[in-house]
């Protein structure tokens, strides 16, 4: 780190583009993929048809769709994995489908969970209750609700106005409001729960007594406070990291490195679980093995 913030492992000379992989590797990889792929498909096709796990109790038509669904999911799963080998048409299809489906998913979600109940439901409650949300509670202050719902409506129109040929600058107004509110909220909450609370949590006795003098407890307490102080020193921008400040900041960097190493190690577990779950799906739900 050398008291600067370039990363310890950065490669100062990133590789230049390289020629295509050697043909013998390509052949090996392709045959590996084709072989395992055909084995998988064979196994899946031979597996009991249509009892896709949980859906076994469902009616026959449902079961067909479940089978189709599991096959679709399996192919898409393998398609995404294929990106690990190299970019390829199957991955590109998966990517395109994912972009389209997910963009629409969030739009539909926004429409039915935000726009309908919170905007239309306030602007024209009768209509919404009649056609979409019969269980929507009747408001005691319909006038106020209407007025409050008009604000985001107007802001929304201003935001979308940038599509219009003239006066697109007006869309900066709602963006300014969003940023302003965010700034105000975060200013308060970060000082309250991050700044003050963390300071309070650091203020601990530097000596641990557990009946008598607790050696390891004291070491732990000292490490905790020294760690916070040295890392904070690293974050000082006004002073160059030289002399005593530099040495302290260097210790701070060590603390940071241990922190990051530890966080990295802790994360691995979750990532592996996620992958294991995908394999569980392929083996159990699709191939019916294991």
């Amino acid at each position, binding site marked *: 780190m050398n008291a600067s913030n370039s990363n310890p492992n950065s490669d100062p000379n990133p590789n230049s583009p390289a020629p*295509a992989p050697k043909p013998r590797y390509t052949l090996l990889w392709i045959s590996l993929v084709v072989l395992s792929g055909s084995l998988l498909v064979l196994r899946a096709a031979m597996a009991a048809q249509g009892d896709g796990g949980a859906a076994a109790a469902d009616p026959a038509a449902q079961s067909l769709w479940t089978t189709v669904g599991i096959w679709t999911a399996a192919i898409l799963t393998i398609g995404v994995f294929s990106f*690990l080998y190299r970019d390829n048409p199957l991955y590109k299809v998966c990517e395109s489908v994912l972009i389209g489906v997910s963009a629409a998913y969030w739009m539909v979600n926004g429409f039915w969970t935000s726009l309908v109940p919170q905007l239309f439901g306030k602007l024209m409650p009768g209509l919404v209750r009649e056609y979409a949300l019969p269980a929507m509670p009747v408001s005691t202050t319909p006038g106020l609700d209407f007025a409050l719902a008009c604000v985001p409506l107007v802001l929304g129109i201003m935001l979308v106005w940038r599509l219009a040929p003239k006066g697109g600058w007006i869309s900066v107004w709602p963006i300014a409001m969003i940023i302003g509110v965010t700034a105000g909220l975060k200013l308060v909450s970060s000082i309250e*729960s991050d700044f003050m609370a963390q300071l309070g949590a650091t203020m601990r006795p530097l000596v641990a007594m557990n009946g008598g003098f607790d050696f390891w407890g004291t070491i732990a307490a000292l490490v905790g406070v020294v760690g916070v102080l040295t890392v904070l020193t690293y974050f000082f921008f006004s002073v160059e990291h030289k002399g005593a400040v530099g040495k302290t900041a260097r210790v701070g960097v060590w603390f940071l490195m241990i922190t990051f190493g530890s966080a990295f190690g802790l994360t691995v577990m*979750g990532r592996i679980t996620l*992958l*294991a779950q995908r*394999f569980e799906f392929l083996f159990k739900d699709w191939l019916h093995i294991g």
Partner: protein
Amino acid sequence: MTTTQHNAGGSAGGSSFLARLGNLDRRWIFLAMGLSIAVPTLLKLRFPEYPSPMSKATFDAVESIPEGAPVLLSFDYDPASAAELQPMARALVHHCASRHQKLVFMALWPLGKQQADKTIETVLKPFHPEYKEGVDYVQLGYQSGNEGVIKLMATNIPAQYPTDASGAALKDLPLVAGMRDLSSFKLIASISAGYPGAKEWVQYANGPMPDAFKVVGGSTGVQVSQLLPYYPHQMEGMLVAVKGAAEYEMLVEAKYPIAQPEVIGQGRVRMGPQLVAHLLMIGLIVLGNIAMVAGRSRGGAR
């Protein structure tokens, strides 16, 4: 993925195996990783677990509240993180139900409600049939608003949740009819995969009323470093990743055995691939360093 790594060592020109290893085509690493997870998954390998202090603290936090007291369970994750978190949710619900706590389920993530429903179906209904909806447990469901939901619940639960997930008014449900704010609960457990989640529960629920209830959290491995500063003062217990789930499962199962152990044994099954994959990672780190040293001693003059 095709470019860089596999030929950058070409300059060594047919040199030693170790030096070239430094520029190993990363697809070999991918293959090794794939196998190290796929094989144990297929063979269902299981290893013993030893409860860590944090998992034990979580267990003790639940044990320390009076039996039958109300508990709020917030499902702040979606299916993407269910692999790590669902085992915790199952064990936690079984633990609470075995102690006859009153359970209130809710979600800060849209798909968290689904996860809560799944947990009710797989754990609560089959193994604790005495639990009646509305009396012993309530499913409030999801409300948008992130930490805003917590803030409002801290002062006024009915304002945030006029009805439960099925549309029944809160005042008609005996369990929650008299609840005004979060201080009605003795324990709040947030199983979370990010924002909003356990951190927000600490900030906005525990922050304004630090003594009203205990907060415990389950989190994915990646989130844990964000939550560590809050343990053990603002958060009494923490379950970390699938390992935390596995350890907690052991603690719960030892005291409250369940008819079908596999229902709350998912966490331990998923620890199998962990060992092999972790060993692989350790091997890779060692290998990378050997390769670096070998490469350095060869190319030292450059």
